[in-house]
């Protein structure tokens, strides 16, 4: 085990652990936000740069600080490393910069976006963003397209985190879902806009941190904060059948996987509890499910109502 200090909290972790995962082991509010890294998907991380942290001392052997901020999701800890996240002014400023970049081309169409209320970019914007935009130039725009008959892609909202590509890589042998073009013109697409013909393609919706991939069976049906999430179970021969059903009265409006506070699908009985498309899109009758109990949501912005109102009162600096 090796020792690392993050925001004055000392913890011991296994060698090879990344700074981000070490922080998650410590828990609490010293955990850097992650828009692209997804612990359950190999190959993710290193792209969005929201998880930047300052390394004040590299290791006991070489205690020099690292000159640049590093991506905590892809930098392994060293013994004696000292990391600053929320205690670093540089991190705060630079993360604000990254949010500004992510919002350059991201439309502020939250009022009509299904993801509003559980959007990681919304959270990030509240915490690190500025209330005004300095971007006056033209935004890149695309028309929404269908990825199969159950998934809608709003490329305008995509932040190119590549998480859905990592899901698709697990589902298909050859690459049918990926990124076309480069730079600012890069776009997520499927081979001649084909559906990914796979029972688990719906999980792309769950990994998408923003409202770029949405569930066509739920689109525009309700705001998520009007729904009550219940942990539910069903007998399924394709997946574990362990999901969350989102209800209004006695009606099921949508079904998602069970997600932890980092927005990642939970591990249940040592397996990542991805759910199949049957459970997600077709089982909307309450008789399909056994309800276990209400699901507590402990992170998301608008769902945990009032969180930001109080936060901003205490810290007026946040609304510049």
């Amino acid at each position, binding site marked *: 085990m090796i020792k690392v200090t993050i925001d004055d909290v000392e913890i011991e972790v296994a060698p090879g652990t990344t700074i981000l995962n070490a922080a998650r082991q410590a828990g609490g509010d010293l955990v850097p936000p992650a828009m692209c890294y997804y612990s359950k998907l190999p190959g993710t991380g*290193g*792209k969005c740069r929201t998880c930047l942290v300052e390394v004040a001392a590299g290791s006991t052997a070489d205690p020099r600080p690292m000159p640049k901020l590093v991506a905590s999701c*892809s930098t392994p800890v060293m013994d004696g490393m000292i990391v600053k996240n929320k205690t670093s002014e540089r991190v705060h400023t630079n993360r604000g910069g990254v949010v500004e970049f992510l919002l350059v081309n991201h439309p502020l169409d939250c009022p009509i976006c299904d993801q509003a209320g559980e959007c990681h970019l919304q959270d990030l914007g509240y915490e690190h963003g500025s209330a005004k935009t300095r971007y006056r130039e033209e935004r*890149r725009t695309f028309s929404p397209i269908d990825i199969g008959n159950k998934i809608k892609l709003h490329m305008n909202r995509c932040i*190119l985190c590549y998480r859905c590509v990592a899901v698709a890589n697990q589902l298909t042998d050859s690459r049918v879902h990926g990124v076309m073009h480069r730079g*600012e013109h*890069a776009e997520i697409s499927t081979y001649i806009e084909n559906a990914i013909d796979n029972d688990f393609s719906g999980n792309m919706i769950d990994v998408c941190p923003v409202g770029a991939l949405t569930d066509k069976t739920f689109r525009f049906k309700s705001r998520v904060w009007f729904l009550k999430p219940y942990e539910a179970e069903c007998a399924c021969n394709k997946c574990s059948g362990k999901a969350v059903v989102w209800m209004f009265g006695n009606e099921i409006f949508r079904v998602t996987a069970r997600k932890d506070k980092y927005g990642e699908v939970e591990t249940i009985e040592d397996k990542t509890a991805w759910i199949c498309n049957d459970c997600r899109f077709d089982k909307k009758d309450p008789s399909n499910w056994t309800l276990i109990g209400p699901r507590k949501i402990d992170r998301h912005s608008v769902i945990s109502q009032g969180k930001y109102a109080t936060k901003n009162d205490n810290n007026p600096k946040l609304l510049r």
Partner: protein
Amino acid sequence: MSRKLLIEHAEVPGITSFETYRKHGGYASVEKALKTMSPEEVVEEVKKSGLRGRGGAGFPTGMKWSFLAKPEGVERHLVCNADESEPGTFKDRYLMEKLPHLLIEGMITSSYALGARRSYIYIRGEFMYVLRILEKAIAEAYANGMLGKNILGSGYDLDLVVTPGGGAYICGEETALLESLEGKRGNPRMKPPFPAVKGLWGNPTVVNNVESIAAVVPIVNEGGEAYAKIGIERSTGTKLISASGNLVRPGVYEIELGLSVEEFIYGDNYCRGVANGKKLKACIPGGSSVPILPHYLVTKTAAGTDRLMTYESLADGGFASGSMLGSGGFIVFDEDQCIVRNTWNFARFYAHESCGQCSPCREGTGWMEKVL
């Protein structure tokens, strides 16, 4: 006048043929290394030479080589980075076009030092005619027993493959280059693992610039210590500089590191000053990705000392008043040039060439171009 270790024979008629190249002392380093030295001894000479990577970052080549993982029974590779796409840099193309056998000789000697049996030259997609020159030279090297099985009776086998890229700037970044070489989209990989541990096809790999590999030839021929005597401090040996812009005599020059910038711009043996009697306005000494120097910081540092063509002196002053040697793309602007327009031109290049993986570059370069 500087000694020329690399391009001395560049203008000899017929030097692109194996025969002429050999007559001018070519392939001596292969003979010396394979017949009289162990691979470790070659690595040792390169370490002693103080050679630093000529692709831009200036990382010591000997050190990079000694980091190469050598697990039992796993193939290793040497990959030559011939993607040269940095605006203002054109020395690798010159070297390959004029002296294809020098690069091949360097590849053989270096591959031997690293224990690589299958090496690659990844060449920029726009350089198709250079690719043809290299292919012809490689075929000649095979025909003359310098490549293939049991080279010069030493028992060492090496295959050398040259592959063109699709013409993307980012494929010059070493891990993106490896992705592209494997036939994938040229996006950089996450590091660690570094290529020295997991590179091409997951095997330990060294990626080096064309000029770095060519420099191994004189280092092995003359010894690392002799090479290290040229230059100043940690900037040893000679360096190819691609001089462009408003100069009387632009072109590719081989200089001894430590030459003063003043001499390089105005000296009779070099660029002979700013063209048309104009005044110097600014200079980008190391290719489009290094900071631009205003005229008063070109030949002198902020502290008033002479600015020299070395890694250290060009970086003197950091981002505030210094720049970088980079890949040696030396661009000179006269008083009539518009720096804003030029910056817009570069911004447009970077926006166009951004791979789009990381948000600051993807969104930031596009924004920069639009603002300018």
